């Protein structure tokens, strides 16, 4: 008699630790919710650095709500990150030059990888990527990392603008995004629960990435509110093991843009001396380009009484 014993069981989960890219000039920016100024901060910092004649690359990872693309290009025709991840475009095909002229006549340039072609969402291409991620995760991650390595080697600094974790982006997409950065920057507002959500999302989606800067944005520029926000610096340093915590006062100039169509960043239109927010962001931008590694953690803020 032959006895056949079959073992059924749960397929063992593949053990994977997301390891970011080696080159330390790549920063990914996340925020736990929309509307805290993630894209605005990324754009301003990028253009402050570009004005110092550094080569800056930007990648719009938010395929579902491509704010960075619409902010800098209006709408985008031709392939972008989505098409590259699907294997339909090469890194050289997806990089677009964006330039604005300052009031002094200086042309400031950055390179942008837009989220996708403008009709991709309507054509169901984003859904296709979600399906492809189930089947060909490793291949898609490889393409993403290749793009970032290419940008990192041809630019002085690269910024990835990530979608909000509470949005429609599937978990594997966040893992791919996390593989394509070295550092993580976090943008939150001064509401205490936002920091809690951010910490939770970092644990869920980016547990292995080192945090470089935490931007506390949109702080009411009145003494008692600003001082109270800055007092939270040690707590935020601990929560994220961040190198810097940057306290950005609310400044209408950063959001004084048209609802649709490309618009120049405030850092192109105004000098840092004309805007308190830009003053703080300029300081932060210089630390980012130098990749300073202070002992402990440093809070950057307006000098409060």
């Amino acid at each position, binding site marked *: 008699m032959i006895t056949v014993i079959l073992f059924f069981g749960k397929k063992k989960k593949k053990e994977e630790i997301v390891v970011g890219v080696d080159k330390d000039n790549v920063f990914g920016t996340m925020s736990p919710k929309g509307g805290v100024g993630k894209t605005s901060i990324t754009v301003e910092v990028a253009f402050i650095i570009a004005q110092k004649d550094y080569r800056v690359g930007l990648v719009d990872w938010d395929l579902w709500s491509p704010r960075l693309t619409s902010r800098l290009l209006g709408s985008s025709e031709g392939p972008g990150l989505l098409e590259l991840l699907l294997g339909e475009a090469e890194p050289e095909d997806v990089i677009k030059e964006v330039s604005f002229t300052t009031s002094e006549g200086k042309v400031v340039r950055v390179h942008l990888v837009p989220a996708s072609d403008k009709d991709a969402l309507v054509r169901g291409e984003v859904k296709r990527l979600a399906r492809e991620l189930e089947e060909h995760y490793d291949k898609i991650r490889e393409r993403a990392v290749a793009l970032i390595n290419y940008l990192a080697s041809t630019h002085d600094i690269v910024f990835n603008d990530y979608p909000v974790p509470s949005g429609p982006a599937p978990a594997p997409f966040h893992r791919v995004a996390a593989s394509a950065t070295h550092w993580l920057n976090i943008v939150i507002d001064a509401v205490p629960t936002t920091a809690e959500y951010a910490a939770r999302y970092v644990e869920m989606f980016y547990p292995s990435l080192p945090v470089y800067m935490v931007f506390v944005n949109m702080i009411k520029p009145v003494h008692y509110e600003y001082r109270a926000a800055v007092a939270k610096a040690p707590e935020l340093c601990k929560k994220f093991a961040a190198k810097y915590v940057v306290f950005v006062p609310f400044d209408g100039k950063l959001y004084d843009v048209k609802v649709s169509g490309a618009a120049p960043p405030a850092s192109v239109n105004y000098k840092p001396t004309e805007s308190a927010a830009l003053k703080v962001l300029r300081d932060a931008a210089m630390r980012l380009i130098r990749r300073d590694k202070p002992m402990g953690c*440093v809070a950057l803020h307006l000098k409060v009484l």
Partner: protein
Amino acid sequence: MSEVKKIEKGTVILLILKRNLTWDKYILTIENNKLVAGEPKIPSENDFKDAILALLIIPHTIKKEEGFEKLVESAGLDVESLPEDVKRLVQLIPGIELFIPDKDLLEANVGETVIPPEEIMDEVVNMVETMIKELGLEGQVKVANHELYVIVSKRVPKKVLQQLEKVLETRVGDLFRVKVTTG
């Protein structure tokens, strides 16, 4: 906010929603930095009494910047740029929290406050513990003399162990010497 950026002239629309759910509309005219006229009138404090909401819209306003006139198309409201009498009216808008920035704060230089590593370390240990759990690993975290020991289960493959060490090195390597072992 500097003096040169005051709204010089233009039209401001003020909408007030009353308790009986009707809107009162005022078209306010600004000239030479002053509220000069209101259609049907310049609203007074009384007009805000039974208001539950009010909106101030600045559709096309001329700002003067360093001698040049600039058309403002944004709906962004910079309270400081409004003439004093409009600013006073704006403060009466119920349900909207408005603020006037502290000028000396905005003009302050950027400073830095250093939080020494010793103040951060204890919390970072908790963070590393959570991180290991999130990665689906079981292990213990111990700290002694700036060294962070992570002891994980023997069943963890060597490759994963190396990745974990690399990740911890990048994440907290500035604060600790990281040592990952199995036990």
